[in-house]
């Protein structure tokens, strides 16, 4: 592993630990534009949005919704939930990446 990759690996580790900054800095802020839940949008525009109501519930199996353990609402618990999410998410993207590299490179060359 070269020096750049090693440094980035350290940065990734630090980013996991410091991740709660990403919620604490914006604790009293609303969602990003266009990422509100259905009830909030309907309240803002003052009428119902049948299409959005139907489609928005198509996937509700997120294990750690909004990068948190459900119910961990206060700053401390939300921060711990955020770090857990950072670890789980990092592990999952790296796992999927290596599976993909292996799967796609397999038909290519034995060296890969």
């Amino acid at each position, binding site marked *: 592993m*070269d*020096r*750049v*990759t090693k*440094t*980035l690996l350290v940065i*990734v580790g630090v*980013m*996991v630990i410091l*991740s709660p*900054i*990403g*919620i604490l*800095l*914006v604790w009293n*802020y*609303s*969602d*990003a*534009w*266009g*990422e509100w839940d259905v009830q909030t*949008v309907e309240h803002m*525009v003052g009428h119902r*949005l049948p*299409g*959005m*109501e*139907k*489609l*928005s*519930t*198509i*996937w*509700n*199996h*997120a*294990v*750690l*919704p*909004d*990068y948190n353990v459900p119910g961990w609402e206060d700053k401390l618990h939300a921060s711990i939930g*955020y770090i857990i*999410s*950072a670890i*789980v*998410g*990092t592990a*999952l*993207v*790296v796992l*999927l*990446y290596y599976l*993909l*590299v292996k799967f*796609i*490179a397999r038909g*290519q060359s034995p*060296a*890969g």
Partner: protein
Amino acid sequence: MHIPDGYLGPYTCAFFYLIMIPIWYRAFKWLKNLKPSQVPLLGVLTAFAFLVMMYNMPVPGGTTVHIVGGTIIAILISPWAATVSLSIVLLIQALFFGDGGITSYAANVFNMGVVLPFVGYYTYKFLSERFKLNEVLSAGIGAYVGIVTAAVMAGVELGIQPYIQPGYCPYPLSVSVPAMAIAHLVTAGPAAAVVTGAVVWYVKKSRPDLFAMRTIARG
């Protein structure tokens, strides 16, 4: 910039899945060109892209934005690598964290995994090669232009919805495009420029061969 399920109607979602099929084909085919020595680098950059999006930043006015890391991957490896990497990240974010959506997945990959890295990369390439502008500065400007363009693209997708099919995103272009553009011009753009510039500066310093090799190859 993660469009959730419900904001885009079925036609818009289907349209972006259709657009993404050939792009995914090309990007995953490109993955075969990844040198064994680059495999760990793209892996750690994929983790970086996931984590950097968790760093929400305040926008004056009360909303939040984050950066993506797509231009960094595009410059250090290839814009196609960024497409692969962000397709992975956006899938995990949608499935496990409810960030983004299933129906809007292809649209989100198009914005953050195609528009952002390609615009960022070619802006960087144009400035550094044509105008001989400093590479660090070119990378920063590229990242800025890339993320703002991607945000405007997301704004366009959201804003055309009322004209296509009502009942989904209720805000027209005149509202969605300025909202997405301003938040990214003011906060995400400068942040992306600084982070991308810093990474490129560091890599140029410790692995100048990465850049030198490419310049020779480009000839």
